[in-house]
């Protein structure tokens, strides 16, 4: 047998002072492409970072790259969460910033970022152009990094990786934020580079994978456990038997039956129109599914509802029965809404503890600036207990695994039992168990009459309570329908 490309012996890795990988051994031989799976927080990303040379460890990790191959003899790691920086090297953004129009550009354009990458790795730009077309990214060449959604950032990172074609490519959660079509295209492209000799490690909790994946493993109790296939043990659909706190069972009191009414809403940045003549009505208690391809305008539409878009003021629309821009403040709007989105998570305050993060939901603030009265702090404690986060409550949010962070943000979102719950891809980055648990919870929560707008790409990831669907395509409403009459994709 030939030498392994990567050989790992007696690896020990700590995450936040806790040993997550214990005496792990793993050989990756030529021709092998691996799926690495396992529940959230087991150390998958830490292991990947060790191989990519981004994480300290004890033990042995040795590489034998193929010296005859034309492919770069290196490891390239695509993080599930990519933190870009502004031109001055600072990553100090806030999530509403991408909707604000400012002439002095703070971040590089996609084109400049790619050209820098190509220069650094001595790559031909023509190869990147093919990928841009394939993944429908050409139109973003002049967009600044700040304007991209999480799905678009993911694509940009994937384009870099596919362009570089390193001998070992590790992709952490390749599908999060990708729409159905992009996902299919990505699988083709991964198969193509695999055929050229790139070996892959994919970290995911999916069962549908590119066909080049021929080895399967998960991390369990700090060790690598080989699996026969990508299929995980069947999961129980029951969520742990904790009782929903009483304050979340109270039916919301609506100031108006009309939650959202948009009349020919248009949003554009310079020449580029991102929403065109949107007409949409959401009534109290309705449960909506919002869908559309990456870049179709979903997050812009939601930012209008959440009071985050500066161009709201020139459009004709109503929120909770009031015309937008008639003297209300954004805080008047936000008090009715609980929102969670990948972008919101991205820019969330990393210096808050779990308890503070959840408590800040009472004030719709990012960070807690006020003392909570006793009645409210008991609610925070109750909810923390309900979500099984009691042991984590004094930890910094940013030190928890992604899946737990999402649960914390969901708790923050519902702490005030809002009239309108906006869940924009809430399960991105969660494992299968967590996704099912989460969606069960959404069903249960919204049964009190809460209005819901849910964004999700894949059928398997959706809560059962959804009853209406609006589909956007290139900034326009393509379809509005009742879900009972049609079937989901």
């Amino acid at each position: 047998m030939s030498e392994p490309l990567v050989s790992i012996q007696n690896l020990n890795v700590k995450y936040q002072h806790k040993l997550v990988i214990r005496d792990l051994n793993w050989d990756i031989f030529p021709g092998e492409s691996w799926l690495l799976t396992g529940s959230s927080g087991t150390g998958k990303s830490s292991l990947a970072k060790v191989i990519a040379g981004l994480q300290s460890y004890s033990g042995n990790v040795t590489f034998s790259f193929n010296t005859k191959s034309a492919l770069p003899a290196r490891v390239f790691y695509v993080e599930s969460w990519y933190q870009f920086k502004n031109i001055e090297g600072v990553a100090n953004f806030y999530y509403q910033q991408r909707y604000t129009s400012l002439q002095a550009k703070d971040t590089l354009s996609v084109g400049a970022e790619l050209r820098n990458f190509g220069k650094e790795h001595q790559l031909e730009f023509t190869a990147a152009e093919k990928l841009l077309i394939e993944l429908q990214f050409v139109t973003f060449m002049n967009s600044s990094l700040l304007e991209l959604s999480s799905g678009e950032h993911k694509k940009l990172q994937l384009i870099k990786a596919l362009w570089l074609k390193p001998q070992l490519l590790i992709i952490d959660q390749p599908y999060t934020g990708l729409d159905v079509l992009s996902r299919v295209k990505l699988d083709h492209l991964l198969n193509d580079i695999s055929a050229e000799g790139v070996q892959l490690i994919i970290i995911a909790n999916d069962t549908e994978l590119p066909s080049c994946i021929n080895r399967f493993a998960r991390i369990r109790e700090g060790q690598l456990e080989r699996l026969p296939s990508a299929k995980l043990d069947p999961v129980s659909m029951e969520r742990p038997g904790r009782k929903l706190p009483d304050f979340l069972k109270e039916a919301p009191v609506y100031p108006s039956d009309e939650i959202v009414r948009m009349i020919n809403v248009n949003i554009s940045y310079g020449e580029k129109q991102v929403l065109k003549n949107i007409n949409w009505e959401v009534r109290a208690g309705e449960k909506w599914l919002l869908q559309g391809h990456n870049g179709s305008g979903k997050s812009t539409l939601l930012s209008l509802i959440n009071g985050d878009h500066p161009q709201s003021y020139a459009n004709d629309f109503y929120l909770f029965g009031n015309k937008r821009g008639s003297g209300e403040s954004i805080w008047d709007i936000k008090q009715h809404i609980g929102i969670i989105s990948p972008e919101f998570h991205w820019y969330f305050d990393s210096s808050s503890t779990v308890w503070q993060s959840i408590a800040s939901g009472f004030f719709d603030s990012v960070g807690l600036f006020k003392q909570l009265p006793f009645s409210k702090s008991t609610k925070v404690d109750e909810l923390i207990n309900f979500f099984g986060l009691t042991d984590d409550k004094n930890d910094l949010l940013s030190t928890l695994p992604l899946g737990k962070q999402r649960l914390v943000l969901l708790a923050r979102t519902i702490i005030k039992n809002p009239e309108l719950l906006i869940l924009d891809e809430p399960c991105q980055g969660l494992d299968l168990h967590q996704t099912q648990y989460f969606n069960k919870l959404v069903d249960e929560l919204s049964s009190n009459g809460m209005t819901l707008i849910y964004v999700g790409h894949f059928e398997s990831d959706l809560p059962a309570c959804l009853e209406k669907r609006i589909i956007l395509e290139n900034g326009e409403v393509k379809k509005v329908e009742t879900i009972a009459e049609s079937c989901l994709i």
Partner: protein
Amino acid sequence: MANYFNTLPLREQLNQLGVCEFMDSSEFSDGVNALKGKKIVIVGCGAQGLNQGLNLRDSGLDVSYALRKEAIEGKRDSWKNATGNNFTVGTYEELLPTADLVINLTPDKQHTAVVNAVMPLMKQGATLSYSHGFNIVEEGMQIRKDLTVIMVAPKSPGSEVRSEYVRGFGVPTLIAVHPENDPQGKGLAEAKAYCVGTGGHKAGVLRSSFVAEVKSDLMGEQTILCGLLQTGSILSFDKMVEKGIDAGYASKLVQYGVEVITEALKHGGVSGMMDRLSNVAKIKAFDVSEELKEIMRPLFQKHQDDIMSGEFSRIMMEDWANGDKNLLAWRAETGETAFEKTPAGDVKIGEQEYFDNYLLMVAFVRAGVELAFETMVEAGIKPESAYYESLHETPLIANTIARKKLFEMNRVISDTAEYGCYLFDQACKPLLADFMKKVDTDLVGKNFNEGKDGSVDNTQLVTINEILRNHPVEIVGTKLRKAMTAMKAIKTV
């Protein structure tokens, strides 16, 4: 126009310098009501103009922008910023006659021209707002007697005014009403409502006067904030290179060190910053800073005296009239320093290393903050005002140096700050020549603790800690920082 401050009798000078009240949050319970339904027109749409306008509109107020005809016709950046965010934009003639509140957010230097153009167009009884009092106090601009004149000055860059607002907080803000222009007695209510509209009321508001703001602001910016950081940075870099430290390392240590060091200052005051050093290093830094205070005190006093007498403004305005001859020469000189021209090396410097290997800067910062504060208070400025204009702003300026060195700092700060900074730097470097001859790499470039066993004399350490903690800037600082605990770290490193 005559210097306004110099026209006042001493009694009234002291009276206005002494306006200083840290406002209780209950004073803002009326929210934005005093401006609700009123027409607010902002003149200028740069970083402060745009971001304040976005906040005010998101607080439910009616905001539009008045720009010069050339800016509109030429579709300049200010026009694009305003229209791109769906604000109404018009010329002065179109918008100002119906405005209830006109907010002047143009650069200081343009104030005389802008106010002269704006004033005749404003309706009877309207309000004019400034974010800096130079035009009123130093240039002696006379405002029509029917108009109310207020000041609302967020103590942060425009981008932060916005980012703190949208996350549900705000930035510390200074407000004032000009006593010569408050005919209806509505000035304070409007200034408070404006402050609520930008979110400032959540982060601590200091009620000041035009006079106190100008005299303390000028002093702070030219001494500790910009002047001393520039002098200290250049001298430190040159010393390291002279002593054979790698230039790339030296450049990085100086560029980012001041930010890391003053981040500790922001959270824990001077003693918090000093506490980051080991005991031996702290005693050394204390001794060095005492010496620096003694050497530099006369220079700090001269700057304060010239600011109080109006001499500083007079010579600066002379330079304005002279086509910025001095300013441009000094700016070019700063661009040519070895520090400015040496890029930061590709070396990793740990957070603690910035303290251990840059003890000299810790000493500079302590000396500068305390001297500026002491000198201001001696001159009749109240401790709270002196705190804002010395310690509070130091990390903000340090951040600009971390971003793009001194050139960037001087580009970002106001014209008056830049002029005053060079003035200080020119005088301070020769003053420190003998002192710098004694400085070696244990103070700058290498770890001071190296080769020392760390033992100290207990009584000496206790005495030093007491002196540091009982300094008036620490007493007032502890009180004020409580109101701003949620301030986010701005970090480049």
